[in-house]
């Protein structure tokens, strides 16, 4: 660790992993509710478990992105963080606000939470992923502004590398597009149209800039490949991400009452969206192959390669599967969507944060890499979580194909609930995969505490 303030990342990463555990606990709860419909009803109805699961995901990824930025930006900018104290204060504000929000979801009925938080003054609650009370959303904006101010000042008064500028752009974009969450018109078509300006332009837009820059950073560090080469690749990747993803937003505008031309524009541009992910795979494979050093942190190298591959599979391949309008007409809003969503989020964003944590945690603890036993366990946890996610995705894909056949495509379609009963076997097996995923996560956490033979730094 070259700069002391990089160490602030540690608290952010610990919070991130803690919230990740919470996310998965609620995930396996929902998985059980899929097959035992009244499990925990009425104390924790499905929709409450779901909003806790999705909101924890988003918040822990944000903690992960912030921690990653606090770790890499001082090093890239070649100066200490502008205000370490601001970063520490914001950490606690974000954590407490987040915890209170989650407790709000769990302890009071949602309509009551809306009343208590004066939603009527500026109603923004009740939309998917944006369930947070308006006051929480305002809090998120304040935390985001403080964060961007802090790292922005650090970059602007320090060395401006392509990596830290692309990361900064991605993070600013994240903050700017979040503002659309305050726009909640009565017109349902307008509501849906601009909702995607948060969700799509986040995960298929600016978040890809964040992911690509973090991956580039770790790959420079673990392979020693020339920065010029990596930065050129980074520009090409993000160029393709935005060229395909901006108009590619249209693949969400097929069936919501928007003009028919979106079926063409959305299909064509979003069909190109796998390209940046394929390029990331090519890029990661290439720099690892041409590496100039064997970094002792083998786990981090594996996480980096795995991120590129799983993002390509989950976001690229599974996304492509249902992105063309003629296919999407039948698959829209089915388990196919859930299959894609899970692998895409895990591959692209969960894994890139875990890659950063894997790389930086040992350094923040004063070592080049974790000891051999710890790395072996961490690598095993990588495979456990990753293969579990592949299983979840394949099972939900199977469920989705059956759902589409029985409920959408058939000449004699069956009602939703009847079809869900037919899918029970898929859901039970998915739950098993969810449990093994949770086990993998516990293995991952334990790897940070396991003792063993220290690695030597072999150059």
């Amino acid at each position, binding site marked *: 660790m070259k700069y002391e303030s990089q160490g602030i990342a540690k608290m952010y990463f610990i919070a991130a992993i803690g919230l990740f555990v919470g996310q998965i606990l609620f995930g396996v709860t929902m998985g059980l509710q899929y097959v035992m419909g*009244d499990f925990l009803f009425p104390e924790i109805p499905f*929709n409450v478990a779901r909003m806790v699961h999705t909101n924890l995901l988003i918040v822990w990824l944000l903690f992960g992105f912030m921690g990653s930025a606090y770790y890499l930006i001082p090093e890239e900018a070649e100066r200490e963080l502008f205000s370490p104290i601001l970063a520490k204060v914001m950490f606690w504000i974000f954590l407490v606000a987040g915890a209170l929000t989650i407790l709000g979801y769990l302890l009071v009925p949602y309509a009551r939470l809306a009343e208590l938080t004066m939603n009527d003054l500026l109603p923004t609650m009740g939309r998917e992923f944006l*369930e947070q009370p308006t006051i929480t959303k305002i809090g998120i904006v304040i935390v985001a502004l403080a964060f961007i101010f802090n790292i922005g000042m650090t970059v602007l008064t320090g060395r401006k590398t392509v990596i830290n500028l692309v990361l900064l752009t991605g993070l600013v974009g994240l903050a700017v597009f979040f503002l659309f969450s305050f726009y909640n018109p009565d*017109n349902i*078509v307008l509501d*849906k149209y601009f909702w995607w300006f948060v969700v799509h332009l986040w995960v298929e837009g600016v978040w890809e800039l964040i992911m690509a820059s973090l991956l580039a950073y770790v790959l420079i560090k673990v392979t020693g490949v020339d920065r010029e080469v990596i930065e050129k690749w980074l520009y090409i990747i993000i160029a393709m991400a935005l060229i395909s993803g901006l108009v590619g937003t249209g693949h969400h505008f097929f069936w*919501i009452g928007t003009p028919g031309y979106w079926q063409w524009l959305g299909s064509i541009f979003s069909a190109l969206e796998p390209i940046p992910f394929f390029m990331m795979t090519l890029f990661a494979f290439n720099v690892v192959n041409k590496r100039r050093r064997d970094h002792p942190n083998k786990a981090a190298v594996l996480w980096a390669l795995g991120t590129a591959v799983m993002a390509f599979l989950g976001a690229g391949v599974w996304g492509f599967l249902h992105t063309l309008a003629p296919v999407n007409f039948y698959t829209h809003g089915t388990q196919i969507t859930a299959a894609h969503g899970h692998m895409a989020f895990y591959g692209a964003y969960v894994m890139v944060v875990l890659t950063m944590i894997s790389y930086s945690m040992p350094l923040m603890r004063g070592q080049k890499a974790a000891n051999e036993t710890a790395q072996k366990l961490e690598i095993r946890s990588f495979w456990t979580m990753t293969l579990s996610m592949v299983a979840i995705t394949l099972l939900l894909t199977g469920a989705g194909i059956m759902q589409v056949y029985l409920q959408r495509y058939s000449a004699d379609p069956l009602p*939703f609930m009847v079809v869900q009963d037919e899918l029970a076997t898929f859901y039970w097996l998915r739950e098993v995969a969810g449990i093994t995923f949770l086990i993998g996560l516990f293995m991952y956490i334990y790897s940070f505490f396991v003792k063993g033979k220290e690695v030597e730094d072999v150059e």
Partner: protein
Amino acid sequence: MRETFTKGMARNIYYGGSVFFFLVLIGLTVDTVKRLPATDNSENLTEQVAEGKRVWEVNNCIGCHTLLGEGAYFAPELGNVYTRFGESTEAIKAFIKYRPVEGIEDRRSMPQFNLTDEELEAVAQFLKYVDGVKTARDWPPNIQG
């Protein structure tokens, strides 16, 4: 990677491409918003429907259901429930009103939201309004949603 394709060129493609397609997205957005009145059923967007949308939101219906295919996949699509229930707001209201507090044993259960008659009427009118949105190819493919 060839030396003829430089980092500078890559950077320019990124800047140029992003700005260009962002402007295209804005242009398409302006055009879409202009065309919406033809399909968005806004002529039926009354105060009561707006109130119904609020009821829909503060009870987090989207947390279990899909609306025009978007939302959660635990419970049925409600964009066409007005049609599916025989074009009856009374049927929609009755379904919501008579959910058992303790749920249905072993089945996916919907909470009892204790809505007032006014709220029930509003959310039913909201769902009728959403059913009237003219979706492309008349999505969903069939009555089951």
